[in-house]
């Protein structure tokens, strides 16, 4: 027989030959495949992703709702007044015409640099008690009554008012061009009071004005700028109880800046900072397990247990509310899910595996029937066997902490120190460990032999937050943290204690959800 025929014979015999499969091969393949899948898929992908999506969606929805709602409130009066709005900062505005009228709303985003123009004494006219103008120029330092500033205002100009030291004066500014909001640059902190009247001379406003009369104009609006930015508001409508009350008391609306660079107002309660945030976060965690013996004689067991268990990367996902207690101090509380993962690997020696081998031979002889001979033999393999499993410690917890911001609240970058406690609500466990004979056993929260508590107590929490503001409502943050476990996670009847310390890095987003409270 030639080599070619020989090759062909072998090929034909074996090309499509099928061998019996060893028992458990399929199970072995899927177990190995599951083990090699990326960690996030490993940990019940769908549930985790759904939970993460739900938390982020809720956080974003709440943040968006309050953000949008606040803007509507801020500018509602403008819309109802049917006026032109001039916006000189970059704030997003949501317009809602609640009156369902056909009036058009025009928005001019005036990003052009505004020319400054000083008011001089000749622009100021004193008003006497009869509310008629006194045609006299006053020295700026003697201002102590009601005055009209009759400076022509255009969209491209701002009036710079200096050295107005007397803070009890009322200034009526004649806006000769209707539907234009002038901008004021205030160089003094005592914030003199201004009233802008469109077409002052032709209106009956001054004629009927008395010192103690509340302002009820629906025609005017005020914009005041500070050194870095300004916020815009309107004289509120007459039926706004809160604002009407304020107007009655003060005659003229007084507006104050709270922070440089922000558009917040002081609250009516007088608290300087009154912020409420919702924070959504997720973090990869590294848990460090600490085991110590309760009763003597457990050393060998604990050593074997320790060598068979290795902590893997875990994670935390949650949401919390954050309320300012003062300018720099915030109280935070929420709900989070934490999962610690652990790899259990146990190598057992002298593991025996017996395979039955049956060889069949067919002997063909001329003139005789074919004879089939079966040889049965056994193959015994002795080796070690490695059993592995992923153990999961799952916890539902309440984080409760104080956060002290080291930076000014208005800064775009903020650094804060957090300290507090993580209170466990409930815990559950599933996995394997070794028994007293060093054999693997399944231990779970639902099993009768569970050695784990369903409520594992408290951990102390410390972290540092680095926060970056995206805008006035939204910020993102990173928070490296450390958790120190002070409670034993095992039942008291167990001969040893087990505690977890955790190092993690949270990434999250913060939304401001409270409304601005104007005077």
């Amino acid at each position: 027989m030639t080599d070619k025929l020989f090759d062909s014979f072998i090929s034909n015999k074996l090309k499509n030959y099928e061998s019996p499969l060893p028992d458990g091969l399929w199970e072995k393949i899927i177990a190995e495949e599951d083990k090699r899948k990326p960690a996030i898929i490993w940990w019940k992908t769908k549930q985790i992703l759904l939970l993460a999506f739900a938390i982020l969606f809720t956080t974003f929805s709440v943040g968006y709702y309050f953000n949008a709602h606040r803007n509507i409130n801020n500018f509602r009066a403008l819309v109802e007044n049917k006026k032109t709005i001039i916006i000189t900062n970059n704030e997003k505005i949501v317009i809602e015409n609640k009156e369902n009228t056909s009036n058009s709303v025009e928005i001019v985003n005036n990003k052009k640099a505004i020319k400054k123009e000083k008011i001089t004494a000749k622009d100021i006219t004193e008003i006497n008690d009869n509310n008629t103008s006194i045609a006299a120029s006053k020295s700026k330092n003697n201002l102590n009554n009601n005055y009209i500033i009759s400076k022509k205002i255009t969209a491209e100009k701002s009036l710079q008012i200096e050295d107005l030291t007397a803070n009890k004066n009322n200034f009526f500014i004649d806006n000769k061009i209707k539907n234009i909001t002038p901008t004021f640059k205030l160089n003094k902190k005592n914030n003199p009071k201004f009233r802008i009247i469109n077409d002052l001379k032709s209106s009956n406003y001054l004629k009927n004005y008395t010192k103690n009369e509340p302002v009820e104009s629906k025609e005017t609006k005020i914009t005041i700028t500070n050194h870095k930015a300004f916020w815009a508001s309107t004289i509120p409508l007459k039926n706004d109880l809160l604002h009407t009350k304020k107007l009655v008391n003060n005659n003229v609306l007084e507006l104050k800046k709270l922070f440089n660079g922000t558009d917040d107002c002081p609250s009516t309660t007088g608290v300087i900072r009154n912020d409420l945030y919702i924070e959504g976060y997720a973090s990869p965690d590294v848990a460090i397990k600490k085991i110590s013996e309760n009763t003597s004689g457990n050393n060998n067991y604990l050593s074997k247990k320790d060598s068979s268990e290795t902590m893997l990367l875990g994670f935390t996902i949650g949401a919390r509310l954050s309320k300012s207690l003062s300018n720099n101090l915030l109280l935070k509380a929420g709900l989070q899910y934490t999962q610690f993962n652990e790899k259990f690997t146990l190598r057992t020696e002298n593991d025996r595996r017996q395979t039955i081998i049956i060889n069949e031979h067919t002997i063909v002889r001329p003139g005789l029937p074919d004879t089939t001979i079966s040889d049965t033999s056994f193959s015994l393999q002795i080796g070690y066997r490695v059993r592995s499993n992923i153990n999961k410690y799952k916890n539902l917890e309440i984080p409760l902490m104080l956060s002290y911001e080291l930076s000014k609240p208005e800064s775009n970058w903020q650094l804060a120190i957090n300290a507090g406690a993580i209170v466990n609500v409930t815990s559950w466990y599933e996995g394997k460990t070794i028994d007293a004979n060093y054999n693997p056993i399944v231990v779970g929260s639902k099993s009768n032999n569970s050695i784990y508590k369903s409520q594992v107590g408290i951990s102390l929490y410390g972290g540092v937050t680095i926060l970056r503001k995206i805008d006035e409502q939204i910020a993102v943050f990173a928070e490296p943290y450390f958790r120190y476990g002070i409670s034993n996670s095992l039942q008291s009847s167990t001969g040893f204690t087990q505690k977890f310390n955790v190092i993690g890095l949270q990434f999250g987003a913060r939304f401001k959800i409270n409304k601005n409270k104007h005077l």
Partner: protein
Amino acid sequence: MTEQEIIQGCVRQNRQCQQALFNLYAPNFMSICLRYASNSMEAEDMMQEGFIAIFKNIGQFNNTGSFGGWMKRVIINAALMLLRKNKLRFNEIDDYSNNNNVSIEAYTYSNLGEEDLMKLINNLPKGYRVVFNLNIIEGYNHDEIATMLDIKPATSRSQLVKARKMLQLQILELQKIAV
């Protein structure tokens, strides 16, 4: 389930489809792995690596050729990778005898079952066995084998000649026993 449905299911990582695929092809692939492996444990490892690679890369199969052929290539690559990991070497081994021309009676072949052939191939040194399998049974040429095993084509040819001769001698020995 048709083969196309099984493939689509495997692309979606559907476990039932993966098992159907396994049931369909595993016996043939097991015999391939047994031909390359030194023992059944090694063959199981090859099967495991091969099927994990198939499930992972099944999305890359572009339906241009035979799906069975594509899977067979993946299995063989997995087997070779494992052999390489276990230090596959192509050493020159002394011939069993000085006979350059081995003469085997044709009727001897009729007595040879697949199991016998598998055993005889398994008795070949690892390097001989791999080249013999790749060339004679899988049909790769020596240039392709050289690329796959990172050896020279001449080495592949030489290993094949020696493998064939050693196999023929083994069959001859069987023939003598039978007589």
